[in-house]
C-alpha cells in the first residue's frame, strides 16, 4: 500500500504541531512508519520545531513555504505538497503515513481530496466556545474535529461539555474528539481513530 496522507488544519495556535508531537510516539509504538510535511508562510518554523523534538529523523520532516494564504497550497493548488509527499514516499519506501500540517489559517480552511485521504481540523477551547457555532467549512467538512486545550475551559469561561455537544451537532454527528495535546490526554483516541479510518493497521 502507498502511504496514507492525512491533513491537519486549524487556526494559528490551536495546537496542530503539538498534536503531531503528541501522536508521533504512539504511532511509533505500533510500528506505523511516519513522515511529516509542514506548511508555514515564509519560514520553516514548524519543521524546525519537529526536527528539534527528535521524534523523527530530521530528513523525515519536510517544509513547504506557502508564501501567501496558507489554504492555497492545501486546496487551490496543492502541487507543492503533493510533490513533497511523492518525494518522501520515494525516499522512504514502506512509509505508512504522511502527516501534512497546514499553516495556521482561518475557519474556512479545507484540504483538497487530491492532496489528502483524510484530514483533521484542530481548534482550541481558548479560541472561544462560539467557534463550532460559526460553522466554518473547516469545522463542518473535516473528517475529524479535535478540540484541544480542554483543560483551559474553566480559565476562559467555557462550558466544555456544551462546546463538545455543539460541535457534534453542527457536524451532523461527525467525529469530534477532545484533547489536551501538551499533557497527552485524548491522544490515544486520536491515534485509534486514524488507525481505524485511514491507516487500516
Amino acid at each position, binding site marked *: *500500500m502507498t502511504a496514507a496522507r492525512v491533513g491537519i488544519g486549524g487556526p494559528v495556535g490551536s495546537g496542530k504541531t503539538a498534536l503531531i508531537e503528541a501522536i508521533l510516539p504512539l504511532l511509533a509504538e505500533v510500528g506505523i512508519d511516519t513522515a511529516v510535511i509542514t506548511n508555514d508562510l515564509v519560514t520553516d518554523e514548524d519543521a524546525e520545531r519537529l526536527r528539534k523534538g527528535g521524534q523523527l529523523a530530521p530528513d523525515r520532516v519536510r517544509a513547504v513555504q506557502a508564501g501567501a494564504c496558507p489554504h492555497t497550497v492545501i486546496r487551490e493548488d496543492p502541487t507543492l505538497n503533493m510533490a513533497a509527499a*511523492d518525494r518522501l514516499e520515494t525516499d522512504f519506501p514502506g512509509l505508512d503515513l504522511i502527516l501534512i500540517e497546514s499553516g495556521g489559517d482561518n475557519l474556512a480552511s479545507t484540504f483538497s481530496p487530491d492532496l489528502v*485521504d*483524510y484530514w483533521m481540523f484542530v481548534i482550541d477551547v481558548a479560541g472561544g466556545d462560539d467557534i463550532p457555532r460559526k460553522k466554518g467549512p473547516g469545522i463542518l467538512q473535516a473528517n475529524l474535529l479535535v478540540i484541544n486545550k480542554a483543560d483551559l475551559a474553566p480559565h476562559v469561561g467555557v462550558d466544555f461539555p456544551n462546546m463538545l455537544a455543539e460541535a457534534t451537532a453542527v457536524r451532523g454527528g461527525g467525529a469530534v474528539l477532545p484533547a489536551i495535546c501538551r499533557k497527552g490526554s485524548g491522544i490515544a483516541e486520536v491515534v485509534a481513530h486514524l488507525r481505524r479510518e485511514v491507516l*487500516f493497521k
Partner: protein
Amino acid sequence: MKDHSPDGPMMLETVLGMAADAQWHDRLHALEHEGGVEFLSIPEADAARKRMRVTTDRGRDCAIALPREQGLSDGAVLFHDGRLAIVARIDGAARMRLRPASIDDAMRLGHWCGNLHWKVIFGQGVMDVVLDGPRARYEARLADLRGLAEFVIEDA
C-alpha cells in the same frame, strides 16, 4: 489483494476494471443472479479520496486504499473472486444552476462564487454549483450579490 481477517476490514487496493466494460459486464451479471455482487455507495465529494472506510449494501466492512495513480469512478470493480464482487457506486451530488443576465453579471457572479471556493461546472450560458450541503446554505451566500448582479437560480 490482501486476505482479510474476521476482525479487520476487507482491503480493496486496486481498481480491477469497470462494470460497464464488456468483459466485466458479463461476469458481474452472472454473479448478480446468485446474489454475489455487493455495492459501495460513495458520495461524489469523497470520490477523489484514495482511502476510506466504507460498508457495502450488505453490511460488509471494507477499507479502500488505492494507488495514487488510480481513481474511484462510478462502476469501479474493486473485488472479484468468482463468488463475490464489490462495485463502487458514486452518488451524484445535487447541483444548483446559476444563469447570469449579461456578461457583466457573469463576471460578478464568477468572481463571487470563486471567492466562496465553490466547485462549479461551466455550461452554455450557465454555471452549475456542486452542492456539498443544504441548498439553502448556498442560496444564503448569494443574497448579498442580488444588488450587484442580475442572475436567476435554476434546478440543474
